[in-house]
């Protein structure tokens, strides 16, 4: 059993009283992340300021046998930073220093609590930016981005977080510190940076992160095209890809989401559109000019009835404003909504959207679609009213059917939000038991005692056994019959 008082004393000895939160009322602040439907109040919260403190905190957790969960800004949408009841929540919000800016080598080294947008702000004057741009970039942390392998609208061309992290300092679940990768490429040995990014806080705590920054493009051109239906918009997307163009971003919104943002931030999108596309090209001027004309033509050929071209940064910002505010604007349409993050091969788009409309009619629930059309990452929003008897359950069921539909077309259950707590039950729809067991071999190498963000990602926790060497005494989870030895 957790000796809470002793753990608090030990943590305070490392962090001082101001670095430890233990009153229940204050702990409530941390009971959920961006997905508020899961809530757990942690036993205590600690706020380390240095990597060394993180290491000492994790060592104490080990010695006391207490599970722990890292938390960045708490904007995750899959319950990844959901606390463990009898556990410690390690919050990174006091580790917010940008440690090094190395323009000649196009690298920035940061602490995990640094906010995504700060990196770009730091290097903008030198003509650089940090490419992965989740819509939450004003608040989410780089540590959280690393854990989730976060994406953004511009990832179609520039890749995801994993393509922009070259080095990590990690406190392993047993308190040991390791340095993986660095500023230089091709570090000999396994690519554990690649394995760590996207591991959703289950392989340790990143305490220092080396990022690749990208030169600002010479030219950026953005257009907004309105179509009568998502089918036509989808046709235009296929046409753009078939023409050998790799846009910086291609985003689609359907009529319901357009209606929502018009009630909210009022971007003034074309009236009567069944779907709009935002297409952005960037790169060297001559290249962009040439391809932009092609994109415009392809949109017209696919029956776009109105095309607007951003003439300056303000107009571009307005086009994006509606798109970036889409989730938040759903509040204007419905008291509650359920966000999905499934991915499909781009070419399956028309068929999946049609079938989704049928499902929506069958369930009598509206589904709004706002998505990264270029890479097939859908964000269907199932609208419902919790006050109405049984509607929440129906909404979740419908969301599940949409997931299954996407998987039938060779897709994925999550493109950028992660599995976390929320989607682990769907993992067996995508992977076999062997697939999941083999993934967990990696977890066993990092966290053999199953203390680091336990219970996330995998539907069936597996204990690791000791390899090699003598077996330890039974793990509490195993004693309780909750997990099998693996």
């Amino acid at each position, binding site marked *: 059993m957790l000796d809470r008082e002793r753990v608090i004393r030990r943590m305070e000895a490392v962090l001082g009283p101001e670095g430890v939160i233990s009153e229940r009322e204050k702990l409530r602040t941390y009971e959920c992340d961006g997905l508020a439907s899961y809530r757990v109040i942690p036993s205590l919260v600690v706020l380390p300021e240095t990597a060394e403190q993180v290491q000492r905190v994790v060592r104490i957790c080990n010695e006391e046998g207490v599970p722990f969960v890292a938390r960045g800004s708490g904007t995750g949408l899959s319950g990844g930073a959901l606390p463990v009841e009898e556990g410690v929540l390690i919050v990174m919000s006091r580790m917010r220093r940008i440690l090094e800016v190395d323009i000649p080598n196009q690298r920035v080294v940061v602490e995990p609590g640094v906010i995504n947008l700060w990196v770009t702000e730091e290097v903008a004057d030198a003509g650089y930016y940090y490419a992965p741009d989740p819509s939450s970039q004003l608040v989410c942390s780089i540590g959280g981005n690393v854990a989730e392998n976060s994406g953004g609208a511009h990832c179609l061309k520039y890749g995801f977080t994993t393509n922009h992290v070259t080095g990590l300092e990690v406190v392993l679940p047993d308190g040991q510190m390791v340095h993986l990768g660095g500023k230089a490429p091709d570090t000999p040995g396994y690519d554990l940076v690649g394995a760590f990014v996207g591991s959703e806080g289950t392989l340790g705590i990143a305490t220092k992160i080396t990022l690749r920054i990208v030169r600002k493009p010479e030219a950026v051109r953005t257009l907004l095209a309105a179509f009568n239906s998502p089918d036509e918009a989808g046709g235009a997307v296929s046409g753009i*890809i078939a023409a050998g163009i790799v846009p910086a971003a291609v985003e689609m919104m359907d009529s319901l989401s357009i209606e929502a943002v018009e009630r909210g931030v009022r971007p003034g999108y074309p009236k009567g559109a069944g779907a709009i596309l935002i297409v952005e090209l960037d790169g060297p001027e001559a290249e962009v000019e040439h391809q932009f004309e092609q994109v415009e033509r392809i949109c017209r050929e696919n029956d776009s009835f109105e095309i607007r071209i951003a003439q300056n940064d303000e107009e571009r910002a307005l086009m994006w404003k509606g798109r970036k505010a889409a989730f938040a604007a759903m509040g204007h349409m419905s008291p509650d909504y359920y966000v999905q993050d499934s991915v499909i091969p781009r070419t399956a788009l028309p068929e999946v959207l049609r079938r989704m409309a049928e499902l929506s009619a069958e369930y009598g629930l509206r589904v709004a679609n706002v998505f990264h059309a270029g890479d097939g990452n859908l964000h269907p929003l199932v609208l419902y009213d919790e006050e109405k008897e049984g509607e929440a359950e129906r909404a979740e069921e419908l969301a599940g059917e949409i997931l299954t539909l996407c998987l039938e077309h060779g897709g994925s259950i999550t493109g950028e939000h992660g599995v976390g707590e929320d989607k682990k039950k769907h993992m067996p729809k995508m992977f076999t038991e062997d697939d999941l067991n083999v993934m967990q071999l990696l977890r066993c190498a990092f966290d053999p005692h199953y203390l680091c963000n336990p219970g996330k990602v995998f539907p069936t926790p597996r204990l690791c056994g000791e390899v*090699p060497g003598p077996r330890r005494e039974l793990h509490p989870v195993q004693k309780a019959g909750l997990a099998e030895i693996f």
Partner: protein
Amino acid sequence: MQRTLSPEDFRQVVGGEHVREAVPDDAVDGVVPSIVVEPGSVEEVSEVLKLASGAGLKVAPRGSGTKMELGNPPAGLDVILSTRRLNRIIEHAAGDLVAGVQAGVRLEDLQEELSGANQMLALDPPEAEGTVGGIVAADASGPRRLRYGTARDLLIGITVVLADGTVARAGGKVVKNVAGYDLSKLFTRSLGTLGVIVETIWRLHPVPFASGTVAAELEDAASAGAAVQSILHSSLVPGALELRWRGGRGRLAVLIEGVKPGVEAQSRAARELLGEHGEARILDESEEDELWSELLPMPWESGGIGLKIAGVPAGLPDVLESVERITGRYGFEPEISGHAGTGVTFVGLSGGDEDSRAAAIGELRRGVEERGGSLVLVQAPAELKRRVEVWGSTGDALQLMRRVKERFDPGYILNPGRFVGGI
């Protein structure tokens, strides 16, 4: 350890004609295996590995065999598991810019198939005859990594067979996907020590419509560094930035790819920038072919010594100077090339006795590692590899890497001894 298996046991799994006794050419760093087995399906790979690991036999996966020299000499070798027959392109979804291929498909064959749709896998290692599985395992890359990244950035799904025969898949066939751990990255650069890669799924790119090359003659290391920096921090988006260097001077080539008007404008801009640091010009087509055929091969002969130094791009002048200074002191005249935009430099050494080779490499490595980089001995006679560790230091991460190895291949049957720290 029991060794009671006979080739007959393997013949029962893969068919008689697909098992043969090994010949001296199958040796890896002088270690000759007993047999070569060529399974024709994922299931057969699984059965072969079950047999081998049950008997404690040491297995080396092999594709086209272009990289069998990479790594420390094997600590044991009984079976070569050839992926040659796993040579099917499973799917080319052109509209999705995705292709699924078995591990034994040769890169050049895949490229040919993809080119029908004006698409490509944006990997260009010097060995086009290498198989995709081998390229992933050895993390082979080429000049265009500057723009497109390396195998880790393009591989979106993988199927592997572990030493105990377990078949597992990770990732998928969509470009954007964060479900589960990214085993594609774990297996990239794992040199066959974690499992046998049997299938791979790739993100593709459109073939650029046009290309051009701008070359500059550089008279010293400082100008080489400055020239590279001037391109990197410009708004140009070069496909590659390649250097060839010898005797304190050399040539830098910038590959520009895109649409025709874009290539022309970027080429002019590149010439302008490079002109500040040396004589620079835009090449015509025939000169271009000649230049690239001179730039692309590794700067060493077969049988010679090849080093790969990975550092930061701004460290280029320092690398060029220290390579020439240090190896020069031991009597070498190094041949140097490199992906200058990404900090990768290749060094070829010929001649010299073993003592001076070992000493020069050791001294060079210390300097490189002190500056946060790495030096890998990518080609060398086995005797030298027994004296100079191939990979160099992995810092404080080695123990963790061992733990990973021990979970995936607890019996150390896959390519034992070849990888970092004797993994």
